């Protein structure tokens, strides 16, 4: 399991084995069934989680409809980052969609490791920078791309999620009506190369 984490980390910074073990010592394994809530609005996010196995979603309610902010699978992070970083109560729910195993680090432990080792602090900075850029990219995509383009871009980048995530969640994540999503998916089946060629 730690190998997956090591691999993930090496995408951001080079850590020697001693650095990595400082981090690994603080990591705990947490397992959840499907459809378990990891976090509710009003709670402070205590953990940043790396998914070893499974799938989770982060969302909130606008009126009675769910708005999805994140869908994460193996080798990705899930957590209410904003609450984790600020210590303020979260606005969001996090729920597993499949049986899920996480490698989690508590925010207090991570702070300790940052103080001990500036290369790990760099890792933290790089990951948060990545979060910021992802958000920025997403906002730009929402403004610049139309519904169809957003759909195609998503399907191209996340073919797996299309299979594993209920369609209404995907539609919500892509900020489109479920009917629109169905219609676009239909279009894709007829022309399987449509997504691949872009």
């Amino acid at each position, binding site marked *: 399991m730690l190998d997956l984490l090591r691999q993930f980390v090496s995408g951001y910074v080079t850590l020697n084995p001693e650095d990595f073990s400082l981090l690994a010592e603080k990591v705990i394994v947490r397992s959840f069934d499907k459809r378990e809530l990891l976090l509710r609005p009003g709670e402070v996010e205590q953990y940043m989680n790396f998914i070893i196995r499974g799938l989770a979603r982060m969302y*909130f309610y606008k009126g009675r409809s769910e*708005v999805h902010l994140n869908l994460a699978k193996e080798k990705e992070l899930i957590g209410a980052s904003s609450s984790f970083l600020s210590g303020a109560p979260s606005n969001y729910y996090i729920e597993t969609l499949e049986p899920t195993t996480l490698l989690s680090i508590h925010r207090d432990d991570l702070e300790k490791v*940052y103080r001990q080792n500036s290369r790990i602090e760099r890792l933290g*900075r790089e990951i*948060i920078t990545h979060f910021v850029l992802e*958000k*920025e990219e997403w906002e*730009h995509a929402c*403004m*610049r791309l139309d519904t169809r383009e957003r759909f195609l871009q998503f399907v191209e980048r996340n073919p797996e999620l299309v299979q594993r995530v209920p369609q209404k969640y995907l539609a919500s994540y892509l900020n489109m009506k479920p009917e629109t999503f169905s219609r676009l998916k239909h279009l894709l089946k007829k022309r399987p190369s449509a997504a691949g060629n872009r």
Partner: protein
Amino acid sequence: MTSDIAATVYKDALERLHHYLSRYVPLNKQEFGALLPYIEIREFDKKVRVIDTGTVERYLNVIAMGLARKYLPVRNKEITVQLASEGHIIHSELSFHYRIPSSAVIETIEPTTFFSISYDSLQQLYDQYPKAEHLGRLLISDLFVKKDNRYYHQLIKSTRERFLDYVRTHPQMLQRVPQKYIASFLNIKPETFSRLKHLVRPGKK
């Protein structure tokens, strides 16, 4: 401009910068002084495009004086995504970090002075000073939290609430920024924005 002259001309602005950074990490005079050689002072007239689409963003800027906006040109429209005044960070971040051509434009609204740090200088700073690494992490964390809040509030709040929240927290911006930019930033139609403005006229509560 050499940093000695800059230190005289921009004494107040530099003090504000020192104060601003110290909110994240306490820096004594020497430590703050050690950062100065990495900082460039850049001055622009009003309505100047500091960075245009298609060019790679070289700088992360903190506004020393003035006002600037960031927008995305989309189908003959300009969508304002940021309005930044003194003490705020503004740059085309995707372009800056990934070293790719910018899809955003940054334009000054008033004559504006930036304290700017180039991509390379920033990496040098991080390599040289663990404290800079710490400062960088806290700054970017704060930026993320603000971005997340803004995104959430844009989605959850009504037009009227978005308007009132903004003018209450940024009273001076209404005077300094053309109305259409604020309307675009808040994702409110210009007509609606005009109508909402009566809510903040003197005498009305």
